[in-house]
């Protein structure tokens, strides 16, 4: 239905059930077996293979609620192995970049690719990509091709749901009436960028399907919902409005939050957790060359426990945006520790840095800068920490020889097969 020779075509390539597929890539025994991957600390289900979805395992369910039935279902759980997933993601993206000069890595498991104009058969091009990724990494991908990102997302969804498409769907192949049928069968909240809440407001206007939205009055909708909505409508009509962001801007927010393996009850332990978390998040901040204007520190008790609940949180604004380790830790300690209630069973703590700016942009002379600030202690710590196992060097109580008792529990962790020599996969010669 679209003027194909004129319009640019975009492909969305993503890995099916990415985390679960990574676990399978090196463990053929997990093929066709329901697999779930658990959040940090083996808390909740964060990823499911298609077999696990078919069993009706919901996203986010705590593992302790499944553990009992797991054996009878043949369900296998794995701790999240982010190092393995990150490395396999990098390999997939590197491969994809061979198929197009225009690529936007959208998340750990999906990329938008501009289909090169010289490609004679887009469907065959998609099949090539799928085969190449599978051969080189063992991971299954789906490819959706369309004139806009929004439709490429939809095509990708179709490629997964309809087995006869074999994982590749070029939406241009459908005649207009057929495409309208597809859009009519797609609920409006199934469209990229239309969240559930927005869906309720749209339903009130009698817009239920993607087709209803596509055929709505785009100018009126813009007045009511803003320009993002107008873009979505145009994109559904095959007009590309959301360009590829090839250079992802540096992240404007950093988060480090984890659950503890057992509840933490004293301010002294919280003090230590803060020190370690800020050490990790500070290293990421400096690695991307940013300074932060605002830091939020929060902690929480378990939503599943019977006892009293407490969720202290504090927001700290810095006069001068900073990446200074000592300043971050001191500020967090002095603002957050007084909020900690002794004896409360905290199970989770998080540090969030927002209002991130490039370091050079914030180069305002701080006349109150104290002498320690100039010594680049943060960078010094960053250069020392990778050299030894774990986190043995840090500020105050963050510098312990042995990770303390609350550090993460990952009892079902697979080997980091592609990044650690000691953890190579073993192959049988017998």
């Amino acid at each position, binding site marked *: 239905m679209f003027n194909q020779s004129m319009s640019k075509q975009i492909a969305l390539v993503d890995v099916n059930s990415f985390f679960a597929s990574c676990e399978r890539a090196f463990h*053929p*025994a997990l093929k066709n077996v329901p697999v779930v991957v658990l959040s940090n600390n083996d808390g909740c289900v964060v990823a499911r293979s298609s077999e696990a979805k078919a069993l009706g395992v919901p996203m986010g369910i705590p593992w302790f609620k499944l553990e009992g039935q797991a054996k009878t279902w043949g369900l296998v759980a794995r701790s999240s192995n982010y190092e393995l997933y990150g490395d396999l993601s990098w390999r997939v993206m590197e491969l994809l970049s061979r198929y197009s000069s225009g690529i936007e890595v959208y998340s750990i498991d999906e990329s938008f690719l501009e289909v090169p104009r010289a490609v004679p058969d887009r469907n065959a091009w998609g099949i090539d990509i799928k085969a190449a990724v599978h*051969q080189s990494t063992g991971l299954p991908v789906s490819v959706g091709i369309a004139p806009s990102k929004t439709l490429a997302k939809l095509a990708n969804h179709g490629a997964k749901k309809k087995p006869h498409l074999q994982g590749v769907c070029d939406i241009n192949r459908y005649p207009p009436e057929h495409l309208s049928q597809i859009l009519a069968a797609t609920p409006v909240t199934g469209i990229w960028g239309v969240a559930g809440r927005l869906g309720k407001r749209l339903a009130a206007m009698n817009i239920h399907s993607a087709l209803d939205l596509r055929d709505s009055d785009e100018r009126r909708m813009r007045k009511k919902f803003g320009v993002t909505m107008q873009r979505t409508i145009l994109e559904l009509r095959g007009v590309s409005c959301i360009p590829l962001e090839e250079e992802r801007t540096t992240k404007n927010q950093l988060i480090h939050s984890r659950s503890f393996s057992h509840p933490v009850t004293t301010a002294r332990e919280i003090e230590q957790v803060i020190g370690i978390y800020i050490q990790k998040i500070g290293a990421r901040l400096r690695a991307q060359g940013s300074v932060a204007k605002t830091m939020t520190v929060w902690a929480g008790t378990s939503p599943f426990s019977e006892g009293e609940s407490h969720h202290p949180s504090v927001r700290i604004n810095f006069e001068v945006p900073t990446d200074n380790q000592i300043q971050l830790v001191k500020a967090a300690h002095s603002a957050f520790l007084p909020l900690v209630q002794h004896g409360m069973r905290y199970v989770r703590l998080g540090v969030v840095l927002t209002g991130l700016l490039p370091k050079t942009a914030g180069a305002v002379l701080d006349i109150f800068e104290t002498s320690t600030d100039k010594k680049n202690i943060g960078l010094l710590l960053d250069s020392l920490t990778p050299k030894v196992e774990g986190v043995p060097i840090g500020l105050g109580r963050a510098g312990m020889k042995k990770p303390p008792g609350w550090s993460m529990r990952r009892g079902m962790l697979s080997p980091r097969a592609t990044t650690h020599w000691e953890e*190579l*996969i*073993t*192959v*049988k*010669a017998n």
Partner: protein
Amino acid sequence: MRVSGESMLQAGISDGDEVIVDRSKSPQHGDIIIAELDGELTVKRLVITARGVILHAENPHYPDIVVPELSTLSVWGVVTMCLHHV
């Protein structure tokens, strides 16, 4: 990958050696390959004959495995190098 077992001794691959595996290569007759067998990864010499495909062990103490067709065999990659521990 790290090798466990002695079935490839005569190909110069010993127990505990590390091998480099190229996943992008398609397996040819005579290659040493990593194949999936009953949910496990195994290292064998690929021998393609008129009668069928044989996964050959390079050690007389270990039997060959006959596969009816190459298409039924899931090949994980081709071994290109071995790091032998002395």
